């Protein structure tokens, strides 16, 4: 059985700068043609423009990657470096330089083309996300919510990676089930970050202890672990699975309670 991360809200971003890859062809051709024409000046200039255009592609790719990560996560901060904006500006510089230096157009025409290219980039690809996807919770800082969830996800990922070193299939299955439920808990908290208070023990204590347990298990050669210890471990992971499921039910019940409170509040307001 393989662990499938429970994350139903992931939106897969399909946008990649394919169009920019097509536009690199003329720049590449200019370099090749200038080389065959033995036009050294044109070759050097075209090479410089080509490299700048590669920079546009690099920045765009970074920007798209950041945007994809941002879209995937329910709670996250906006990207710190606006790669897509930088890429658009560099594209403007490339278009201006090509037009003014190589095509020998006027400054006005070159600037116009440059602005059109930046505008085109913005309309076609858009710029970087700016708003943090962080909730407002009374008494808990947004940074704390984000850090706690990131920390918990890292711990689960660590446990997930450690699975490869566990030989016993029955134990592995049980750990995988626990991981799957843990991801469901994280997902539920991400949807309603108020739950972070309710699930503090799960996020801080349980995951830490499981991580420590897995580390100590992996430190010992599996040959030296007795069948009795293996059985103990399996029983422990059965308990962990039960605990996690209870935690998940508790979180869902808490959400229902919130809904009930909201219904009652609205009812009182309407009746008044």
């Amino acid at each position, binding site marked *: 059985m393989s662990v499938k991360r429970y994350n139903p809200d992931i939106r897969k971003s399909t946008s990649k700068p394919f*169009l920019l890859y097509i*536009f690199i062809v*003329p*720049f590449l*051709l*200019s370099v090749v*043609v*200038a080389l*065959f*024409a033995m*036009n050294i000046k*044109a070759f050097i200039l*075209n090479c410089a423009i080509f490299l700048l255009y590669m920079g546009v592609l690099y920045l765009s790719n970074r920007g798209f990657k950041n945007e994809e990560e941002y879209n995937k996560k329910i709670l996250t901060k906006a990207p710190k470096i606006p790669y897509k904006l930088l890429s658009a500006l560099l594209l403007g510089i490339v*278009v201006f330089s*090509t*037009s003014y230096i*190589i*095509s020998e*157009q006027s400054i006005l025409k*070159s600037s116009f*083309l*440059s602005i*059109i*290219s930046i*505008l*085109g*980039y*913005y*309309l*076609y*690809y858009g710029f970087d996300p700016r708003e943090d996807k962080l909730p407002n919770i009374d008494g808990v800082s947004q940074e704390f919510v984000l850090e706690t969830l990131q920390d918990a996800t890292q711990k689960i990922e660590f446990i997930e990676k450690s699975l490869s070193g566990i030989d016993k299939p029955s134990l592995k299955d049980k750990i995988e089930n626990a991981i799957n439920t843990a991801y469901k808990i994280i997902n539920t908290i991400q949807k309603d970050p108020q739950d972070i208070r309710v699930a503090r023990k799960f996020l801080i204590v349980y995951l830490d202890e499981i991580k420590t347990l897995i580390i100590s298990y992996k430190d010992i050669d599996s040959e030296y672990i007795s069948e009795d210890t293996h059985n103990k471990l399996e029983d422990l992971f059965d308990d962990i699975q039960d605990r996690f499921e209870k935690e998940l039910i508790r979180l869902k019940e808490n959400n229902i309670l919130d809904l009930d409170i909201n219904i009652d509040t609205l009812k009182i307001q309407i009746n008044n």
Partner: protein
Amino acid sequence: MIPQSVQKILGFIFLLFAIGTTSIKPILYIFKGLI
């Protein structure tokens, strides 16, 4: 608010115009030189 599909088409045309007009010309110039 412009619909996203219109934005994309406009963006495509702008990019095609700006990059196309600036990058094809130098190639043609050099080609002419070659011929």
